[in-house]
């Protein structure tokens, strides 16, 4: 090389692009309008989506997210006779072996009276006192794991255990409301209640049952005891299993329950899992959002055409300048880069303004709705860059045209 090459440095390129943009502020403003609208729409739609989704997430508590309910649907052959839908005897143990299960319990309501599941409960033995002394309460049968599964807490005493269950012990746990109605507050006196005339020792008073608050209004007996005394559950009072899972494991547990319960007949159970948070987000993301995103995309394309058009006009207007620059040492690529950076600069400008407008929209809507605005950086940070890329693409053809201009022709005009 006998001469040092000429080139336009990156800072000169940037200041040329900036000068080109601010030389005609009105035209530049109109040019970037499409890009501004498109980027603003994208940021607003995605921002509003994540804001709305987070609202749902707030309501979507961990309690709901970690609960799986199972209901048998088919009938079961036991010892030659067909009984109602049921769970295998070791259902609790089978389910608890599934990964992600904290505890599981089965319960059903015991029907003893005309009103299914409701029976007179009294602290007095049958034959003593008046009918008014007996009040009707819901009687439930449950496996021992039930209490853990519903996050039970006791004001006094404790839950019954496997021993009570397998030996069909006549013990009962009272919901707090029932205990209050019956006047039972302490257990050190070993109180007894009569359920439809049968004596049961009260061993616990329940004052918290997060998953099934109705348990506080019930009398709960061991499943084994209830079955021996009043027979197994029937189609009228189907048993239900509640599974307490680890956070995030509910969907997966739901998938495995049927197989764990009855490996040879997996269609025997109705399994209710909490909605997948991702599914929720997807639901929010559908329909209307697709429409808006499509409009945003259309707007971006319009914006791109706008930038391309303006840049092409600028190239044609500035043929003399291009020729002069070529004479002054600009290579073809310097000319191309100059117009490319000008169009990319326009796009970046549109992207920045559009992103700001989008964020303002999201915040404004959130304030009006009294929501917490949630704008993910994954959306906002690349948005201005998206504008720049649109500008860059829009500038490709005009820049190529500019670089093909012959200085000899351009200068003699």
């Amino acid at each position, binding site marked *: *090389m*006998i*001469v*040092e*090459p*000429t*080139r*336009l*440095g990156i*800072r*000169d390129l940037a200041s*040329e692009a900036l*000068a080109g943009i601010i*030389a*005609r502020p009105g035209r530049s403003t109109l040019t970037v309008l499409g890009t501004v609208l498109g980027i603003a729409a994208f940021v607003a739609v995605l921002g509003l989506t994540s804001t709305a989704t987070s609202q749902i997430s707030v309501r979507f508590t961990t309690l709901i997210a970690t609960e799986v309910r199972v209901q048998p649907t088919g009938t079961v052959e036991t010892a030659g006779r067909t009984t109602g839908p049921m769970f295998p005897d070791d259902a609790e143990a089978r389910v608890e072996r599934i990964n992600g299960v904290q505890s599981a319990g089965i319960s059903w309501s015991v029907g003893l009276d005309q009103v299914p599941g409701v029976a007179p409960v009294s602290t007095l033995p049958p034959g003593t006192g008046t009918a008014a002394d007996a009040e009707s309460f819901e009687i439930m049968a449950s496996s021992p794991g039930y209490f853990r599964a519903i996050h039970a807490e006791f004001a006094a005493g404790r839950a019954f255990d496997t021993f009570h269950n397998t030996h069909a012990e006549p013990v009962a746990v009272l919901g707090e409301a029932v205990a209050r109605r019956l006047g039972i507050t302490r257990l050190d006196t070993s109180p007894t209640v009569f359920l439809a005339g049968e004596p049961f020792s009260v061993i616990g008073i329940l004052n918290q049952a997060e998953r099934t608050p109705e348990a506080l209004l019930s009398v709960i007996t061991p499943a084994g005891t209830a079955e021996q005394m009043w027979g197994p559950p029937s189609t009228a009072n189907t048993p239900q299993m509640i599974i307490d899972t680890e956070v995030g494991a509910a969907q997966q547990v739901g998938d495995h329950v049927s197989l764990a319960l009855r490996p040879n007949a997996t269609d025997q159970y109705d399994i209710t899992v909490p909605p997948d948070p991702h599914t929720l987000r997807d639901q929010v993301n559908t329909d209307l959002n697709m429409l808006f995103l499509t409009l945003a995309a259309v707007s971006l394309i319009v914006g791109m055409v706008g930038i391309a058009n303006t840049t092409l006009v600028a190239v044609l207007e500035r043929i*003399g*300048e291009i*020729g*002069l*620059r*070529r*004479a*002054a*040492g*600009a*290579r*073809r690529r*310097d000319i191309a880069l100059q117009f490319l950076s000008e169009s990319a600069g326009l796009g970046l400008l549109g992207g920045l303004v559009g992103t700001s407008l989008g964020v303002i929209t999201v915040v404004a809507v959130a304030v009006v709705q009294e929501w917490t605005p949630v704008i993910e950086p994954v959306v906002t940070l690349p948005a201005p860059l998206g504008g720049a890329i649109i500008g860059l693409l829009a500038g490709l053809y005009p820049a190529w045209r500019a670089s093909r201009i*012959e*200085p*000899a022709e351009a*200068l*003699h*005009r």
Partner: protein
Amino acid sequence: MITDAVIEFDGVGRTYPGPPPVHALQPTTLTVRKGEFVAVIGPSGSGKSTFLNITGLLDRPTAGTYRLDGMDVDTLGESERTALRGRRIGFVFQAFHLLSHRTAVENVMVPMAYAGVARRKRHRLALETLRHVGLGHRAQAMSNQLSGGERQRVAVARALVTRPSLLLCDEPTGNLDTTTAGSVLELLDGLHRDGQTVVVVTHNPDVAAHTQRRLLIQDGHVHETTQGALA
């Protein structure tokens, strides 16, 4: 080889491929030495612009060899020719070609960006050059607020700011009235007296009268003419 030659044409010709092919510049052999002030004259369509384009490395000859500052420029690649153009040749055109949204001094700074002059030096150098062409007081004026004569002075300053070995002017007074044209010619005269090599392509006999050497082009043939041979 002549050591102080700026332009050396050895049988340089330019034929535009037809059909029919146009012999815009017939094979020409000539030398322009350092410090010469040369006018290239001739009727319209005779080949003046063709001559200027080849001399200014804006076009390549189809015949012969062209040496600029002793370098055989025909064998160079496009980016090398561009570099030579930027560093060794200053151009002044009839249409000025100033950037309209920039000040006079900003216009003068343009070629220095390509030549890689440090950014902080550019403004000072541009101002100095503007003062040299007598426009120091208009340095901050927007170029579209300048008169025609002032614009052409800015263009001359822009051509000179990279200290080229050759100043090439194509009809520099073509857009100017007689008085203004005269002042621009005086400027070129002054540059010549300072030792600058200047080649002016023109129709204008007044311009040609200023120079000590004239090349007359007719139908692509270049003739040396003597003073007073002009009609």
